[in-house]
C-alpha cells in the first residue's frame, strides 16, 4: 500500500472518531429537547408542522404505539412513492425516449418498499428508468423520510435502555420531525453546496447532445443529482441517481467528493455511539462501542485493500502490469475508476457495506473473491460497524447483549447490561432477532439457487461467482443495505418479490423486536453496577464482543461463504 492510500484510510478513521463527540452531543440535544443553535429558525416550523398534522408533541408512546407509528409512517411513504412511480409517465420531466425501462408493477413495488426501508436496492438504472420528478419528489424525499424514521427508532431504543420504570419511549412523530428538520436537512444543505462546487450537477435540463472530438455524438444524461446525492449518504440509504451509483463521474467527480460522501455515511451512526453513552450516563460505554466498530472497520479495510491491490493473476500472465506505483494505482482495476484507484474503491466498499448504505463507486461484482467477500461479511454481521442510521446502534447493542449473556454464563451470574437485567423475556427477543436476520438471508438464497427463476438472473457470471451474486443480493436486502453484485439481473418478478420480502423482515421485524426490547428494558428498574458485575466498557469486554460477533457470524454463514467466495478464491488460477 502506498503512503497516500494509508493516509487516506487513517485520516478517515481519525475524522470519524473526532466527530463522534460533537455529532453525538448535538443528537443528544436534539432528541432530548435541549437548546440548539438552530432553534430560533426551526422551532416555529416544528410547531406549524405539529399543528397541521394534528400531532400532540407531549403524547408519550409505549413500544407498541411507537412501532405502529413507525409502520404507519413507512406504509404511507411506500404508498406515496408507489403512486409517483406508477404515474411517472404523466408527470413532469418524463423523457420517454431515454427513460424507456418499463415501470412494471413488481418493479415499482420493489422500488417503493426498497426506498421506504432505506434499503434502496435498485433493480433499475436511474437514467434509463426514472423521471427527474420521481428521483426528487419520490426517491430523494423517501431518503429523508425513511432515514429520519430509522434515526427515530434508534433513539427510541437508546431511551429504552436509559429510562427506568416507565413504558414510554418518546413520540415517534416528534422524533421524525426533529430528525428531518434539525439533522438531515441542514446537513444536506451544507453537503449539497460542497458537492455542487466539486462538480455534481444540479439542473432539470434535457439530456445534452455532445459532438465528440473524434466526430461521434454522445448523449449525456443530466439531472438534479446533488439534491439526491447528499441525503443518499446521510440517511444511509445509498440508491444512486444513475445506474452505476457513485462510480458515475456526475455523482462522484473527485477524490474529495468520494471522501466526503463516505464521511457523510458514517458520522451520524458513529455519533450515535456517543449519544448512547451520554443518554445512559456512561460515556465510556459509548467509546467502547465506537472502538470495537473501528477495529472491525479497519480489519475490513486491511483484508479488502490487500486482496484488491494484489489483484488477479490472469492479467499479469497476459503481459499486463498491475503493480502500484507513482504513475498508477495498479491492482484489480476492473470495474473501478482511475480517480479513486484501488484504495478509494475499497474504502467505499467497506464503508457502505458496513453502513447499510447501498452506494458504491466500483463494481463489487468484479472484485477479487476475497475482496468481494469483505462487503458480504460486513452485511452478514448485521450492519454493526457504525451501521445504518439508527439501526446500527441497536444492532450492535444486541450483539453486546449476546456477549453479556455468554459472559454471564461463564462467570455464573445473571447477566446485566448497564444496570438492566437480561431475563428470559429480553433474551427471547434477542434470539428471535438473530434468527430472523439470518433467515432473511439464507432462506431466500436457498430457494433462489434451486429454482429456475432464481438461476435465470445469472446472466453475467455463473458457477461459484453466480452463487455469490445471489447470496449477496439477499444479504444486502436483509441488511437493508441495497448494494449488489450488479451482474445479477434482478429486475424479474422473482427477485423483485423475494428481495422485497427480505427487506421487509430486515426493517420491520428487526426494528419491531428492537423496540420490544427497548420497552422491556424501560420497564425495569436501573440497578447499581457493582464490582461483582461483568464490566462492559473495558477493552477485555471489547475483545469478548469481537469474538462473539465472529463466532455468531461464522456459525450462521461460514457454510455459505465456503460455497461462494472461499471456493472461488481457492479454485482460481
Amino acid at each position: 500500500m502506498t503512503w497516500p492510500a494509508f493516509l487516506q484510510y487513517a485520516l478517515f478513521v481519525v475524522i470519524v472518531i473526532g466527530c463522534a463527540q460533537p455529532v453525538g452531543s448535538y443528537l443528544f440535544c436534539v432528541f432530548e429537547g435541549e437548546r440548539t443553535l438552530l432553534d430560533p429558525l426551526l422551532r416555529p416550523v416544528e410547531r406549524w408542522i405539529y399543528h397541521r398534522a394534528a400531532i400532540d408533541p407531549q403524547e408519550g408512546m409505549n413500544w407498541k404505539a411507537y412501532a405502529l407509528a413507525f409502520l404507519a409512517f413507512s406504509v404511507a411513504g411506500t404508498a406515496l412513492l408507489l403512486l409517483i412511480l406508477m404515474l411517472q409517465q404523466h408527470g413532469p420531466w418524463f423523457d420517454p425516449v431515454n427513460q424507456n425501462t418499463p415501470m412494471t408493477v413488481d418493479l415499482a413495488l420493489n422500488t417503493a418498499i426498497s426506498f421506504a426501508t432505506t434499503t434502496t436496492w435498485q433493480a433499475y438504472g436511474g437514467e434509463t428508468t426514472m423521471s427527474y420528478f420521481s428521483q426528487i419528489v419520490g426517491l430523494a424525499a423517501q431518503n429523508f423520510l425513511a432515514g429520519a424514521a430509522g434515526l427515530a427508532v434508534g433513539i427510541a431504543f437508546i431511551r429504552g435502555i436509559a429510562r427506568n420504570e416507565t413504558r414510554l419511549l418518546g413520540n415517534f412523530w416528534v422524533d421524525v420531525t426533529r430528525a428531518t428538520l434539525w439533522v438531515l436537512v441542514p446537513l444536506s444543505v451544507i453537503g449539497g453546496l460542497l458537492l455542487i462546487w466539486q462538480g455534481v450537477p444540479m439542473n432539470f435540463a434535457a439530456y445534452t447532445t455532445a459532438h465528440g472530438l473524434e466526430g461521434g455524438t454522445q448523449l449525456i444524461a443530466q439531472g438534479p443529482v446533488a439534491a439526491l446525492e447528499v441525503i443518499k449518504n446521510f440517511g444511509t440509504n445509498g440508491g444512486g441517481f444513475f445506474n452505476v451509483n457513485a462510480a458515475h463521474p456526475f455523482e462522484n467527480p473527485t477524490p474529495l467528493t468520494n471522501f466526503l460522501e463516505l464521511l457523510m455515511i458514517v458520522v451520524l451512526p458513529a455519533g450515535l455511539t456517543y449519544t448512547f453513552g451520554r443518554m445512559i450516563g456512561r460515556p465510556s460505554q459509548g467509546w467502547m462501542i465506537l472502538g470495537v466498530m473501528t477495529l472491525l472497520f479497519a480489519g475490513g479495510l486491511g483484508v479488502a485493500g490487500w486482496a484488491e491491490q494484489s489483484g488477479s493473476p490472469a492479467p499479469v500472465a497476459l503481459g499486463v502490469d498491475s503493480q502500484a506505483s507513482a504513475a498508477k494505482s495498479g491492482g484489480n482495476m476492473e470495474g473501478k475508476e482511475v480517480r479513486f484507484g484501488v484504495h478509494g474503491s475499497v474504502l467505499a466498499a467497506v464503508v457502505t457495506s458496513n453502513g447499510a448504505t447501498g452506494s458504491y463507486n466500483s463494481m463489487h461484482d468484479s472484485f477479487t473473491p476475497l475482496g468481494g467477500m469483505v462487503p458480504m461479511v460486513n452485511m452478514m454481521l448485521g450492519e454493526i460497524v457504525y451501521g445504518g442510521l439508527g439501526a446500527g446502534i441497536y444492532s450492535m447493542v444486541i450483539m453486546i447483549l449476546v456477549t453479556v449473556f455468554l459472559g454471564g454464563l461463564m462467570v455464573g451470574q445473571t447477566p446485566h447490561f448497564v444496570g438492566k437485567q437480561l431475563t428470559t423475556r429480553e433474551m427471547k427477543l434477542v434470539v428471535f432477532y438473530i434468527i430472523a436476520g439470518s433467515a432473511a438471508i439464507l432462506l431466500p438464497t436457498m430457494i433462489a439457487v434451486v429454482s429456475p427463476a432464481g438461476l435465470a438472473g445469472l446472466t453475467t457470471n455463473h458457477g461459484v461467482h453466480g452463487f455469490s451474486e445471489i447470496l449477496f443480493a439477499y444479504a444486502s436486502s436483509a441488511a437493508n443495505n441495497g448494494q449488489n453484485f450488479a451482474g445479477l439481473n434482478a429486475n424479474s418478478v422473482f427477485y423483485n418479490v423475494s428481495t422485497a420480502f427480505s427487506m421487509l423482515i430486515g426493517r420491520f421485524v428487526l426494528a419491531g423486536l428492537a423496540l420490544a426490547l427497548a420497552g422491556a428494558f424501560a420497564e425495569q428498574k436501573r440497578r447499581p453496577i457493582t464490582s461483582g458485575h461483568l464490566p462492559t466498557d473495558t477493552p477485555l469486554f471489547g475483545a469478548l464482543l469481537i469474538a462473539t460477533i465472529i463466532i455468531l457470524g461464522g456459525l450462521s454463514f461460514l457454510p455459505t461463504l465456503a460455497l461462494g467466495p472461499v471456493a472461488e478464491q481457492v479454485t482460481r488460477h
Partner: protein
Amino acid sequence: MTIDTAVQRQWGAVRENLLHPLRPAIALTAILTLLAGVGYPLAMLAAGTLLFPQQAGGSLVKHDGRVLGSELIGQSFADPWYFWGRPSATTPKPYNAASSSGSNLGPTNPALVEAIAARVAALRHVDPSNRLPVPIDLVTASGSGLDPDVSIAGANYQIDRVSRTRGVDRGVVAALVEKNRMGRQFGFLGEPRVNVLRLNRDLDARAPRGSDPR
C-alpha cells in the same frame, strides 16, 4: 358478552391501534415530502445555479458554440493519433453517457480474461514496437463506462504511438501529458491521472496532425 359486543370491542381495538397512527402518518409524510422533496431541491437549484453554474450544468466543454462533451465524462477515442481512454462496457456503444454501466464480470469469469487479452492485442497491434507491459487500467473496463481519465502510466504507454502517428516530436507529446497531469487531491486523496479529453484537445491545439481531423 354477546358476539356483537365482542366484535365491536375488537374493531375498536383495531381502529385504536392500527388506524390511529395513519392520520398523522399521512399528514407528516405529505408535509415532509413537500419540505424535502420540493423545498430542498429548489433551494439547491437556486444556490447551485447562482454560485456554481458551470458545475451545476454538468461541466460542459464548449467549442465554437457547440458542446464537445463534459469535463467529467469520458468519450470514445479509437484513432491512433489520439490518446485512448479506458475500455467502456456501456451498450450499445462505448461511452454511452445515457446508460452508464460496468462489465460486472467476476474475477474468475473466462470472458474477462478473453476481454483483457483482446485489448492487449489491440494495443500491441497499433504499436508493435512497444514491448513494455500494458498498464492495467488500459485493459480493464471502468465501473461507470464513462471514466474520463487514465493513469499516468496509461498515458505514458501511448506517447510513442501518438507522436509517431501525428508526425510530432515525442518530447512535445510527453510535455503535454506532463502538463495535463492531475495529482492527488491535497497531495494524498485519490490517484494521479490525466483527463483524456483535455489532453486530446491540447494535442489538437498545440501538436496538430497535418490536416484538421474534422
